[in-house]
């Protein structure tokens, strides 16, 4: 047989003509995605307690309400900006959230000294020791809601707030400190400490300040009263750029070629993937038969017997097989009865016919152990009869 073939692989020109729609479509989609990302930004999560973050974890709601109520809210991005904002108008409130401890104690102290009222949300251990040595951290507060039970105006206005956050304990008894929203064993979620003309409020109810929970209980009242007590509010979230710690970067520590070599290695990996991944022509299709073993019905029936504990039924099958083989061995006709077989077997083996009857007919197996024993006895009987009839 001789066959001459035609070419299946399209030429580059034909392939590009065919694929031009898809290339344009993909470029278009990527363009749209980039534009969308640039204009709207990533809205998921964002910086928690940021005055510009409308996500559930942010706090834009409080800042906006304060602005409409005439409070001058400034949101500096850097430590220097925060300093100059505080210096610009003495007697303002500083809202400080620094859960990652970007500022060291000197920076914290100098910043806090510029403000008349410092609201410190969820301070770390070192922050609390620097700014409010009168209180100690008392761990996590897990209550759903907390009641004020104190004379602090903000707490009284709020009444009840969302409880989740951290708690504090007043450790310096001589300090002029007011603890609010107690959750038992001398633990408070809001502690206000007065020092001369200034005062500092340590707040642990973090959930109460987030957009997500601001409308619950008296959360809004607490946040607005605490932050809106002065005409000017400086909302400052330190970032890693404000950190005083600085060292050599990775680029300074490694040789100059490391970047290029790692880029090259990535390119080599991609090239190698295409080298190994390129197929030598399409697959050849073949319809394969389904493999069905004929003994599967037998196996299935065996499992059914076992699952249903059908011992008597199983044993009966074995008995019928044994009886018919015994009848053939003893030379009985095909239509002979079980009684004939029992009598014949008893004669051949010289055993009690009632024994053989109970084995071949009447005994009911109560357990699997009985079943195995009876099946072994059946085999043994067949073997005996065969030996007695054909002694070799």
């Amino acid at each position, binding site marked *: *047989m*001789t*066959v*001459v*073939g*035609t*070419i*299946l*692989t399209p*030429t580059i020109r034909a392939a590009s003509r065919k694929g031009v729609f898809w290339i344009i479509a993909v470029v278009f989609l990527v363009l749209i995605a980039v534009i969308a990302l640039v204009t709207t930004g990533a809205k998921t999560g964002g910086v928690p307690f940021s005055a510009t973050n409308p996500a559930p974890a942010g706090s834009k709601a409080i800042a906006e309400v304060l602005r409409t109520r005439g409070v001058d809210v400034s949101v500096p991005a850097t430590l220097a900006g925060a300093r100059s904002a505080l210096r610009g108008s003495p007697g303002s409130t500083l809202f400080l959230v620094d859960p990652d401890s970007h500022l060291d104690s000197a920076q914290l102290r100098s910043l806090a000294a510029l403000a008349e009222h410092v609201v410190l949300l969820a301070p770390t251990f070192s922050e609390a020791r620097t700014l409010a040595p009168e209180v100690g951290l008392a761990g996590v507060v897990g209550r759903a809601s907390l009641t004020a039970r104190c004379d602090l105006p903000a707490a009284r206005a709020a009444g009840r707030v969302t409880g989740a956050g951290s708690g504090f304990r007043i450790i310096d008894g001589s300090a002029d400190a007011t603890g609010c929203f107690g959750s038992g064993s001398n633990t408070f979620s809001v502690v206000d400490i007065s020092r001369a003309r200034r005062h500092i409020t340590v707040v642990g109810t973090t959930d109460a300040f987030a957009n997500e929970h601001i409308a619950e209980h008296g959360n809004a009242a607490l946040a607005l009263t605490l932050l809106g007590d002065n005409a000017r509010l400086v909302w400052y979230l330190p970032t890693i750029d404000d950190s005083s710690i600085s060292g050599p970067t990775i680029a300074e520590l490694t*040789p100059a*070629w490391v*970047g*290029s*070599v790692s880029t*090259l*290695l990535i*390119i*080599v990996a991609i*090239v*190698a993937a*295409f*080298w190994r991944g*390129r197929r*030598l*022509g*399409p697959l*050849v*299709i*073949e319809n*394969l*038969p389904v*493999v*069905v*073993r*004929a*003994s*599967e*019905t*037998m*196996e299935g*029936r*065996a*499992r059914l*017997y*076992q699952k249903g504990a059908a011992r008597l*039924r*199983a*044993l009966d*099958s*074995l008995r*019928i*097989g044994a009886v*018919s083989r015994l009848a053939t061995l003893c030379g009985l006709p095909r239509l002979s009865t079980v009684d004939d077989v029992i009598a014949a077997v008893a004669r051949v083996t010289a055993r009690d016919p009632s024994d053989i009857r109970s084995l071949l007919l009447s005994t009911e197996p109560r357990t*699997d152990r009985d*079943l*195995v024993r009876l*099946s*072994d006895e059946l*085999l043994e009987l067949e073997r005996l009869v065969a030996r007695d009839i054909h002694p070799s």
Partner: protein
Amino acid sequence: MAWSGRFVLLVALGIVPIILLDQPDLLGIWLLFAILVAVLDLLLAGSPRQLRLERELPDRVRLGETVASALLLTNLGRRTIRGIVRDGWQPSAGASPTRARLVLPAGERRRIDTSLTPFRRGERRAAQVTVRSFGPLGLLARQATIDLPGAITVLPPFNSRKHLPSRLARLRELDGRTSVMIRGQGTEFDSLREYVRGDDVRSIDWRATARRSDLVVRTWRPERDRRVVIVIDSGRTSAARIANEPRIDTAFESSLLLAALATRAGDRVDVVVFDRRVRGRIQGASGPELLSRMVTVMAPIDPELLEMDWLSVPSLVRSVTSQHALVVLMTSIDAAGGSRGLLGMLPQLTRKHTVVVSSVTDPSVLSASLERGDRDDVYRAAAAERAILDTTRVSAAIRQLGADVVTGAPADLPPALADRYIALKAAGRL
């Protein structure tokens, strides 16, 4: 387009100058260099589109045997083609080697031999040939797939032909070509010849003796020119495998042995493969042509997921022959429920024909019924006994309806069926 490991190595070698010269900017230069060299290499590669391909292929092969398939490549382009050729055969065609290296200068022609050892019956196809042609440096390659269909028919193996000589010898004994001359049932008058000492005195034809005034005896030979109709069930139960061989393959083996035997014995053999429609039919052939037509018809037939339509079988047999015939039904008789159609139809056939039902038994069932080591084994043995019992009951029912039953393991069934045929012939029941 495709590229080789050499190209990957070339790109990776860029690490050396970058580290030695400590120049990070070398990365871009090196990549540009590698791409330039590779593109130059690609431009110098011979075009696989300029190939003229031809395939030389035998028509058919017996399952288990090996044939050579040849691929002829002619380079019609102006540049040498160096590269790899893959002949795209289906996996079960058992092609080896599947890839071949090729150096083909312009205007020349090469032959690539592939040996095929198919491991499945039926038609095995080749779809395409893929050629990957590298440039002189072996960096980049042009690749093209060329449609070049090819097909080879894989015939049933007929392994049971090893039983044929012994059965033929027994047939010859029956035929009277040996010295044994027995008069009996199943024989017909052949000729008259002179009496020699040792002949059976009962065969003396006194009338002819009187005419010739010399002792004349009659000779006898087995009846000839009888009809044998083989009906093979290609329904769903024939797909089940026993000892890793589908039932239908065993049926094909048995039918081939029976047909070979019967056609040598002078009988006419017709074969029908049937489930709900006729899947294959061989009629009116004899001698070597019969076997060759049988394997050709059987080769592409696989069992269908259909219930066998037994009700149509009597009319099917009637359409093959109106005379008395030996009808061999190759099916499975595993369960009373599944065999109801067969049992209901049988009286119609046995009224007119001699019927033999042949079925494969599973040797693993027999061994399972004797293995009773633990609890699982005992339950399996019970199920096996039940299966044997079912087969026995169906066999008894078939015998009661006047048909004959031949069962055996896949390897034993073809000779058993052949023996039954010889016995029936000797008994004159054909």
